[in-house]
């Protein structure tokens, strides 16, 4: 489990440390404080492939095509290495680094999104002078990464047995069942005779009796039986249930890793938030997954606090991002007692 994270020279963060990190982490703060950027930083920890890095990192943003590579770096300065470093409970470090030896040329290429291909590498191979290097290291010391050189294009290295941190991310946009969700459910069904997703979702939708993968005209989709004459597509369920189902599939398929959710309260009625937190907490603990979610919702924070306060172990933290007078952003982490008193006294915790 990750116990702390330090982000350097990334987006709006010169240096940001969040410590301690728990099983479930809510990230609050005013607009433009970098809540989604924290998710993006964590997202990078799971990357060791030669991606179109800009497109990869900005998956949580709707208009990501407008963001060029230099926007990944603090104050758009590619002179310094971008780094995300997470420490585990044993003091081991998972570290992602991205650096450029030629900011100007990299910028010029990045301003031509039409040159991107699905692998990303060729986009930078066209760069006549620049070099871009990314690497991710594990607590064991193993390191994987890729680089794009001015002469020969891309190269990558990945030791045998290297396993990047498993990370699943969900943007704030409306939920749709996609092929990733179907693959995850398929894997879950294949791993056990019981559909492990069912009991979790039944807590939210008691009518649910069965979840299956059905193929129609060669196209697979997820169908649910809620006691009607025949099964219905899962997408026929409400937005909130659909989102929770996707998160659960993500948690159950990211064993030992991380699940990221942007604006977790979207589409969720306040009256069921506490039940949802119970389900997510249970699923995350069973799968040994850490959850990071952003929120603006007071009810969401209270519900998460109450669920973990009622559990045997308060494995939850609220982290608020504040912009200090010097312009740097700092994380303020609430302990159980501090959050309990804040809620009881009605003190604002969201910034």
């Amino acid at each position: 489990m990750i116990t702390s994270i330090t982000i350097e020279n990334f987006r709006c963060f010169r240096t940001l440390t969040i410590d301690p990190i728990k099983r479930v982490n809510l990230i609050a703060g005013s607009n433009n404080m970098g809540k989604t950027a924290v998710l993006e930083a964590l997202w990078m920890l799971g990357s060791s492939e030669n991606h179109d890095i800009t497109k990869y990192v900005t998956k949580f943003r709707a208009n990501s095509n407008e963001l060029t590579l230099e926007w990944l770096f603090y104050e758009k300065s590619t002179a310094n290495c971008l780094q995300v470093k997470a420490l585990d409970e044993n003091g081991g470090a998972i570290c992602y680094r991205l650096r450029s030896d030629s900011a100007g040329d990299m910028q010029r290429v990045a301003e031509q999104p039409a040159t991107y291909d699905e692998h990303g590498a060729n986009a930078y191979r066209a760069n006549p002078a620049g070099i871009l290097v990314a690497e991710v290291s594990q607590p064991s010391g193993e390191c994987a990464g890729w680089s794009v050189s001015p002469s020969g294009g891309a190269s990558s290295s990945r030791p045998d047995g290297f396993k990047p941190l498993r990370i699943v991310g969900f943007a704030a946009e409306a939920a749709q069942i996609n092929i990733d969700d179907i693959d995850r459910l398929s894997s879950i069904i294949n791993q056990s005779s019981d559909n492990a997703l069912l009991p979790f979702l039944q807590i939210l939708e008691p009518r649910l009796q069965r979840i299956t993968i059905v193929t129609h005209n060669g196209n697979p989709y997820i169908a649910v039986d809620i006691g009607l004459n025949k099964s219905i597509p899962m997408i026929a369920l409400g937005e909130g249930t659909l989102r929770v189902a996707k998160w659960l599939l993500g948690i159950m398929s990211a064993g030992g890793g991380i699940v990221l959710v942007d604006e977790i309260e979207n589409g969720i009625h306040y009256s069921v938030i506490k039940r949802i937190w119970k389900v997510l907490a249970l699923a995350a603990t069973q799968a040994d997954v850490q959850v990071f979610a952003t929120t603006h919702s007071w009810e969401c924070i209270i519900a998460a606090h109450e669920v973990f306060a009622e559990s045997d172990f308060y494995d939850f933290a609220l982290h608020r991002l504040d912009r200090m007078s010097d312009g740097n952003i700092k994380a303020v982490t609430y302990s159980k007692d501090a959050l309990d008193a804040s809620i009881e006294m009605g003190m604002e915790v969201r910034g």
Partner: protein
Amino acid sequence: MISNVSVDPPKSRGVSATIACDAILLVEGSDEADFIEAILLNIGLQESIEIINMGGKDKKRRVVEALTNMSAFTLGAVKSVGVVFDADDNAKSAFDKATGLLKDLKYSLPIPEEPCVIVGMINGHVFMYFLMVRQTACWKLSACK
């Protein structure tokens, strides 16, 4: 000014409170709140100091921790914080509790060995001093800029 921060059940609260003044005084209960409000009114400082009723003497550490986590505090909008200790019949015990509270804070402030001494700075621009008057012990954070 007595803060409208109260101890209503969280679920009944639609919004949460923010700090209105740059000086805050935490008190244990409504008696202290009324008493100090009357003093502030008498000396014309009722709009300058926000009194927060913690709703019990055992809640000091939790409330102070919550307060010092608020944006108003971390961003420097709050310049002074005081906590009133009701010493009852044991001033030494109250002093020990006050220093214990200081130890629990994350600012690593020096711990005074006696009341009425300046004990340190926070974030480079906030003093703390501590005083005890007969039955009441009080420590205070005060801006030095």
